């Protein structure tokens, strides 16, 4: 292991789960504290599929990568996957220790996995300091040093070890180097897993999946914690942080979803927001009460779009920021804010009782 941390630093590998934190720094802290490694193969975000793909196609490289990160002769490594999933089955058949995670949106969040790994519930914990140093949960129970890395991150570690930092840096931009898996799905001809890198045009990425269909009107990037763009914006956006930031987004966990044009996009967003509200772990008041209130406000605005209703929704969104143990409310608020902006013409149409989808359900849906 001459110096894997230095190699990763040279390569510029960052976490592929969406947070984009330096893997070298995490690895160093993990080694110094003798932390257990949890490889997160849950594909927790809506539309995510890359972790399953890696386990199905590159399991040996994933195992190599985990050993490189953990180091030592008897490394403590576990693989997190949703209970009963094909991925959990594949990991178990390979004789790997599997942390079986319940099918909830927040259960594969970093601190929720750590809680589950310590015999607690798969619910997020307040992170007073990174758990790689060890710490305590809110009830005061001791949490040993634990580090969570996304499965793609771990896979990339083994690739960098084998092929070198220069190979890695030959992909992407200098600020965001390396190949990245992207799940392209929804209303496209060939949904699936594609290898891309930062700096590609979003339209090129969509072309690999059969192109943006002419009737497509909206493209989601990053799932429920991401943003939604108009088709025109998607055609002119570069998939890298500066390009995505302009729309309030990020590269995230590598998910691009073309929304079904047959459904009213306000309703698509409503469905996602309601799902997000239902997936609150119910621990933190601002999320437990704020998320259902957001879903209700969204529905009200869809039915009766007024400036007052819009302002109320914006206030609601601001009150979800940084007010949970985890970033679930922040993610859904970001998504709702983006959808509110992108779907402004649709809201205007609703105000004139002229939803282009022609459905009359807005008057009734609760």
């Amino acid at each position, binding site marked *: 292991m001459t110096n894997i941390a230095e190699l990763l630093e040279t390569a510029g590998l960052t976490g592929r789960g969406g947070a984009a934190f330096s893997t070298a720094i995490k690895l160093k802290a993990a080694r110094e504290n003798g932390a257990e490694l949890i490889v997160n193969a849950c594909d927790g975000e809506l539309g995510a599929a890359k972790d399953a793909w890696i386990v199905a196609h590159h399991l040996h490289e994933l195992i190599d990568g985990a050993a490189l990160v953990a180091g030592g002769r008897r490394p403590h490594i576990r693989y997190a996957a949703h209970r009963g999933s094909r991925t959990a089955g594949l990991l178990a058949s390979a004789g790997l220790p599997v942390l079986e995670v319940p099918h909830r949106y927040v259960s594969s969040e970093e601190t929720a996995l750590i809680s589950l790994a310590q015999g607690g519930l798969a619910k*997020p914990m307040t992170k007073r300091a990174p758990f790689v140093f060890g710490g305590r949960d809110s009830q005061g129970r001791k949490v040993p040093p634990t580090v969570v890395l996304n499965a793609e991150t771990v896979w990339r570690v083994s690739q960098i070890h084998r092929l070198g930092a220069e190979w890695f840096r030959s992909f992407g931009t200098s600020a965001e180097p390396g190949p990245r898996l992207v799940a392209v799905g929804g209303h496209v001809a060939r949904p699936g897993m594609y290898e891309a890198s930062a700096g590609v045009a979003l339209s090129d990425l969509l072309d690999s999946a059969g192109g943006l269909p002419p009737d497509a009107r909206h493209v989601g990037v990053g799932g429920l914690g991401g943003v939604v763009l108009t088709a025109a914006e998607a055609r002119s956006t570069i998939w890298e942080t500066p390009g995505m930031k302009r729309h309030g987004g990020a590269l995230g966990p590598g998910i691009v979803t073309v929304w079904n044009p047959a459904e009213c996009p306000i309703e698509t967003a409503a469905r996602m927001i309601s799902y997000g509200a239902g997936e609150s772990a119910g621990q*933190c008041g601002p999320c437990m009460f704020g998320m259902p209130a957001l879903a209700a406000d969204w529905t009200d605005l869809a039915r009766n779009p007024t400036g007052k209703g819009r302002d109320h929704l914006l206030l609601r969104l601001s009150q979800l920021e940084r*007010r949970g143990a985890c970033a679930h409310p922040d993610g859904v608020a970001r998504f709702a804010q983006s959808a509110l902006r992108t779907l402004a013409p649709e809201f205007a149409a609703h105000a004139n009782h002229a939803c282009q989808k022609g459905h009359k359900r807005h008057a009734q849906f609760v």
Partner: protein
Amino acid sequence: MPSSSEAARIAVDRVLCTGHGVCAQTLPGAIVLDEWGYPVLRHEAVEPEAAALAVKLCPARALYLR
């Protein structure tokens, strides 16, 4: 708001917080309550003495210093 050199930085353990609202009274200005009584941090930096008292008086032991 005190200058950053002498200020304490407060934070809320959102899992522990049950919305008693005492902090909004011990730290008026820095903390207000939302419609359900949960604290909204206007700013994190407060005077150390006031911060220490607010932490001590939080019934849920949710308020802490960073």
